[in-house]
């Protein structure tokens, strides 16, 4: 189903009257509000940390628009939002969320926590249920107890708290790797909890591998590490 305010079909008449045998070239113009700008994000939650990573490539079709576009934004002192999909919708979404979270801070006298921001995102996305933000989001940070929290959403706000998540063009490449390494799925050896350094290494490996196989993922990896001390940033070439 095409999402938007309906399909508008404009027919430009060809010069059918003057020619007997003409291939009627009808210029069909329809409302195409969406495009996919590619790119991928992931997040891994640990007992006292959260690692969020996203590439910085912005594409359209087979072209690269820029190699330096960020998909990550800090929404709160301990919370980061990663948005893959259409970046113009992502930019608007960030503005709207920033406005709502700043209003909350003024009204409540404290910044929004990760869980609250997750719910805010879900409700904001659902508010556009009939003309969605074409964004695939991950909210990641530390919850009120200081434990790593990752929330993953679909385009209209269906969210779930998980231990690890990926979204975007390389999601199908990265998610199985995270399932295996973070959640220990389908492994017969003993499970171990990832340390922060392990999680960072895993995120880097996931992206270097995904960049090899997905044309829309690459250039630079932007990594944000959220701990009790705050949010630290790293950049890795892909």
């Amino acid at each position: 189903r095409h999402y938007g305010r309906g399909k508008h079909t404009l027919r430009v008449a060809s010069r059918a009257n003057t020619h007997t045998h003409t291939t009627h070239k009808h210029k069909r113009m329809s409302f195409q509000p969406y495009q996919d700008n590619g790119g991928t994000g992931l997040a891994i939650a640990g007992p006292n940390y959260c690692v969020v990573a996203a590439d910085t490539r912005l594409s359209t079709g087979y072209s690269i628009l820029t190699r330096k576009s960020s998909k990550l934004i800090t929404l709160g002192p301990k919370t980061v939002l990663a948005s893959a999909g259409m970046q113009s919708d992502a930019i608007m979404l960030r503005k709207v969320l920033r406005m709502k979270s700043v209003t909350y801070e003024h009204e409540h006298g404290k910044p929004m926590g990760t869980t609250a921001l997750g719910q805010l995102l879900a409700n904001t996305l659902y508010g556009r249920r009939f003309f969605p933000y074409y964004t695939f989001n991950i909210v990641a940070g530390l919850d009120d107890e200081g434990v790593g929290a990752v929330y993953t959403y679909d385009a209209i706000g269906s969210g779930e708290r998980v231990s690890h998540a990926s979204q975007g063009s390389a999601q199908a490449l990265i998610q199985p790797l995270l399932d295996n390494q973070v959640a220990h799925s389908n492994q017969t050896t003993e499970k171990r909890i990832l340390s922060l350094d392990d999680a960072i290494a895993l995120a880097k490996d996931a992206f270097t591998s995904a960049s090899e196989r997905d044309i829309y993922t690459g250039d630079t990896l932007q990594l944000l590490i959220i701990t009790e001390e705050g949010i630290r940033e790293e950049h890795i070439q892909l």
Partner: protein
Amino acid sequence: WNLQIKFLHGTTTLGFIYEGGVIIAVDSRASMGQYMSSASVKKIIEINPYLLGTMAGGAADCTFWERVLGMECRLYELRNKERISVAAASKLLCNMVYGYKNMGLSMGTMIAGWDKTGPNLFYVDNDGMRMRHQMFSCGSGSTYAYGVLDSGYRFDMTNEEAYELGRRAIFHATHRDAFSGGVARVYHIQPGGWVPIHPGTDVTELYYQYMYPSRAEGVEEVVMAE
């Protein structure tokens, strides 16, 4: 080019009333087209301590509207100083989504609870349909679940038989329906409210128990991380 946004769909959910109350059982798979986006979705929505809702169809539609329903139920309690009945709660939900009829909402949900009139089970969907009956199954795997439910159901079952029936019906649906899977969750609604019986049993573990009982070593209860 025409980009279609795919939402989370595909499910098996079921509920039935018996002598001991209401059993609600669900799977936990979410799919976006042919990509399995999650194996740990909570399709039983805890509206309040004595009302449960299930999720089938669009995940966001179900969670959003049942959350609004929870808010309306709370307001009812504050205004009327008594708990809302299941009939009224399901009607609130039904009327909410009827306003969006034909606009593309996808929601097939069961509202279950225990109120003054006893155990109740209502089915509400995005077409504005609302029905009360003693057994329902919704979702892409519902046909498989109905088969198992119909063959094993008796009103005077014991609690254990009822839990087993619900879990087995979910298992068989997940086995045959590609869009159902993950874990089987079973909740029991008693006079005082709902109780989770099986918070999450991996259906691949149940496979050996139900299909090859002689080979099963015993099913391990896998409690999924919340």
